[in-house]
């Protein structure tokens, strides 16, 4: 199964695209996420030097013109209030946000700033964030959604909603509201006081000033949104269907699909939950949570290596390099004029979510050699069974009968590394999950497999079909998830999620 995923993003390792480990695969930029960890001493500020938030500029208020990627909507102290909302949206809470921290170092640019050799001014938002143990803010606006290529975040919540908005106008309003909240939350700032007009407009769990902490809010729609309710049938992305069970699946319908899925990711759990509470509060009458799962990314163990999944194996050693635009255009983004696709889908990407229980008690009773043969890698070092190091490239041609790396090893089936299978590669962005126990008292943990691709049939399904019946299936149980289409990015303040879809 593809679902056995590589969790990307090895923290703490200074290799980048300039140090190619395998053809076409490049390591992802590092984003530090351990509090107080900043690799570049020049970017960090002594936390003790930061002033009282009430009197100092808020994090993110400083701008570095050379790095800011968006116009500076926060320059004025007050944002214009949003137009009156429809009945299902909160009217009492001020939608306008005051004293908003400005974009600061934006988006991927900010995410990559850590690898930059450029000296970063001490006042830079990224540096301040790092000094305070937070991730730098990620620009919300762009041609693509910011949370897709970006390495998996330390904390995430994947939340599927059913839309209950009545009619297209309310759906439009719902998407506008999600957009405006995400715009604020990813940028940060101080929520407006409400005087004696309402309860506080913010949950307060991040303190008086909302910090972005690398927050991304990624929105994707399910096939059910394109049924008769909103007259969107003709707009359905050509490759968007309902996920059907594969032979080894045990899908629970209540934990599958949904009209709209939001993946909220950031540096810490509180930031993720704050964003989730804010968004659901503002959209109470427009959508209802259908299912939800929270995930985390393990730190590299040992430090600097690729994070491990809960089977104990490094996961995500190979992933298509996201800095190679041509490759992303071939594998991830729906292209303008792509045959069969509506024009509005350009810049979006198909998202597959698979919730995969790992039967860890059973797994832990399996001999190490058997475990490694099922995966195709060493558990300790992450090296392929025919290599010595994590980033050694397996040479399947030299091992045609699978004497060293079994033919049914997960790694080998998922990516046979042949010219014929190159176009089926996917961009994986998985997280581990852990949520209590099952009926027999075993620990319920596993993987939130997420992957992005240009074409689910050509990519995820092709990979998944190769994995049918692999030995690993006895130790895992996919129970939920679905197929979605991650919307094109929000271009600017006048744009919103799905605007072109609704046009």
């Amino acid at each position, binding site marked *: 199964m593809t679902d056995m995923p590589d969790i990307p993003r090895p923290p703490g390792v200074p290799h980048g695209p300039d140090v190619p480990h395998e053809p076409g695969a490049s390591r992802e930029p590092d984003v530090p996420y351990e509090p107080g960890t900043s690799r570049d001493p020049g970017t960090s500020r002594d936390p003790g030097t930061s002033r009282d938030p*009430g009197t100092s500029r808020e994090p993110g208020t400083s701008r570095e013109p050379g790095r800011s990627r968006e116009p500076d909507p926060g320059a004025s*102290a*007050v944002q214009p209030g949003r137009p009156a909302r429809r*009945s*299902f949206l*909160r*009217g*009492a809470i001020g939608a306008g946000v*005051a*004293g908003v921290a400005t974009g600061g170092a934006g988006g991927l640019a900010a995410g990559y700033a850590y690898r930059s050799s450029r000296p970063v001014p001490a006042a830079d938002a990224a540096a301040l964030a790092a000094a305070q143990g937070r991730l730098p803010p990620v620009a919300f606006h762009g041609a693509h959604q910011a949370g897709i290529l970006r390495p998996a975040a330390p904390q995430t919540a994947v939340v599927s909603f*059913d839309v*209950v908005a009545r009619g297209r106008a309310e759906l439009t309003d719902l998407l506008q509201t999600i957009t405006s909240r995400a715009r604020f939350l990813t940028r940060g700032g*101080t929520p*407006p*006081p*409400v*005087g*004696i*007009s*309402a*309860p506080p407009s913010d949950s307060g769990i991040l303190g008086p000033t909302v910090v972005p902490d690398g927050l991304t809010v990624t929105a994707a729609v399910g096939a059910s949104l394109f049924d008769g309710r909103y007259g969107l049938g003709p707009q359905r992305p050509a490759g968007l269907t309902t996920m059907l069970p594969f032979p080894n699946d045990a899908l629970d319908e*209540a934990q599958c699909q949904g009209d709209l899925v939001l993946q909220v990711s950031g540096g810490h759990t509180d930031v993720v939950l704050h964003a989730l509470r804010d968004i659901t*509060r503002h959209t*109470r*009458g*427009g*959508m*209802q949570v*259908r299912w939800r799962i929270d995930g985390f990314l393990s730190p590299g163990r040992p430090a600097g290596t690729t994070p491990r999944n809960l089977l104990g194996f490094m996961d995500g050693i190979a992933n298509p390099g996201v800095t190679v635009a041509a490759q992303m255009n071939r594998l991830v983004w729906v292209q303008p004029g792509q045959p069969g696709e509506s024009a509005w889908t350009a810049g979006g990407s198909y998202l597959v979510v698979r919730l995969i229980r790992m039967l860890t008690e059973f797994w832990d009773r399996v001999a190490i050699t058997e475990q490694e043969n099922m995966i195709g890698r060493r558990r300790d070092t992450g090296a392929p069974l025919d290599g010595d190091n994590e980033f050694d490239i397996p040479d399947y041609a030299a091992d045609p009968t699978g004497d060293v790396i079994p033919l049914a090893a997960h790694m080998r089936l998922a990516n046979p590394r042949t010219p014929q299978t190159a176009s089926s590669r996917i961009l994986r962005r998985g997280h581990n999950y852990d949520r209590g126990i099952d009926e027999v008292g075993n620990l319920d943990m596993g993987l939130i497999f997420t992957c992005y691709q240009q074409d689910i049939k050509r990519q995820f399904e092709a990979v998944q079909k190769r994995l049918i019946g692999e030995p690993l299936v006895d130790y895992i149980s996919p129970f939920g998830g679905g197929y979605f289409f991650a919307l094109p990015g929000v271009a600017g303040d006048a744009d919103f999620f799905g605007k072109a879809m609704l046009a």
Partner: protein
Amino acid sequence: MRGGWLVAVSSVLLVAGSACSSGSAAANRVAVSTGACGARWQPSAPGWRTFEVYNGSTAGAEVELINPANGAIYAEIEGMGPATTRPMRIDLGSGSYAFRCLIEDTDAITGPVTRIPGHRRGASAIVPATVTDLLEPAREYHAYVTAGLRVLTRRTGTLVRDIERGDLAAARAAWLPAHLTYERLGAAYGTFGNFDDEIDGRADGLVGGVASPDFTGFYRLEYGLWHGQSAAELRGPARRLARAVHGLRAAFPQMEIDLLDLGLRTHEILENALQFQLSGHDDYGSGTTLATTAANITGTRELLRILHPLLITRYRNLPAVYSSLDLLQRLIDAEQQPGGRWVPVRKLGTLTRERIDAAAGQALEVLAPIAVILEPRRT
């Protein structure tokens, strides 16, 4: 806990203001001496500002920033301890402002008026509701409950008599009308004190749960009537319910309605409904929690009807309150079966249940500001 409008204050109150976003803090500092409340502060351009409000007295204090023309409140700080500083953040538009300090045993003191020039809109102010404003609504609500208790007594009597006679089919039919009559009163969070526990207490928190001898009231009877218990088993709890209802009816004329509760109840009734009824938690067998929710909507609407004159001038989003309740009501009514039967919430289809829950959540969001707006404040 929320009744902080009566604040004991004694002596000195110092109010200082400082610019937040721009300008010099010192230039905007405002000081207050004994017997005064805020000095004139430097009028400057409109915009966001944070005042540092310092209570220099030896007692608690309450400070408001008001429009001196009509007493409308832009911002307030309640329950300030002595010798504490609290920030007051406000988007100042063009207009007139003054601080107002509420001090024990004296009239409220209003400081000098500061004018902000220009034509820019800032935060809006709300005219506070006073104790006087709320007296008449409280009287009306008292009358509503009194009338409801009369009906409750009659319907409970029918239920209890059916059980006494051993006609449990009739008792099952009589149970719902009696229970809904109680639920329409808007009792939430122990409005009626111990009577509420006796009449409508759930089994949670009782050792032994539904088997506890302390489990009593409507839910106790529901549990027995829908779990095959005999009339003999139910006679005791039925009599106890009748006693409690009579006791409440007798005691209610002397019960005072907390003015603070009037606003709070407008969302608390449905908070309870979402937590206990729409979740199915309080379904002890009859599967009628949708009906209970509908009864709770009725109770909420009655409060809104009574408070409408106060809200219409203070709450811009009031129309959304009514439309959201209408929607919730419609969605629930649509699930009532022919013959008046109700579907247990767990048997609702996913989308139906999501729609109802979303509508309830939305109604609560727009109801919630009412408690803040109608909190009785000193004038």
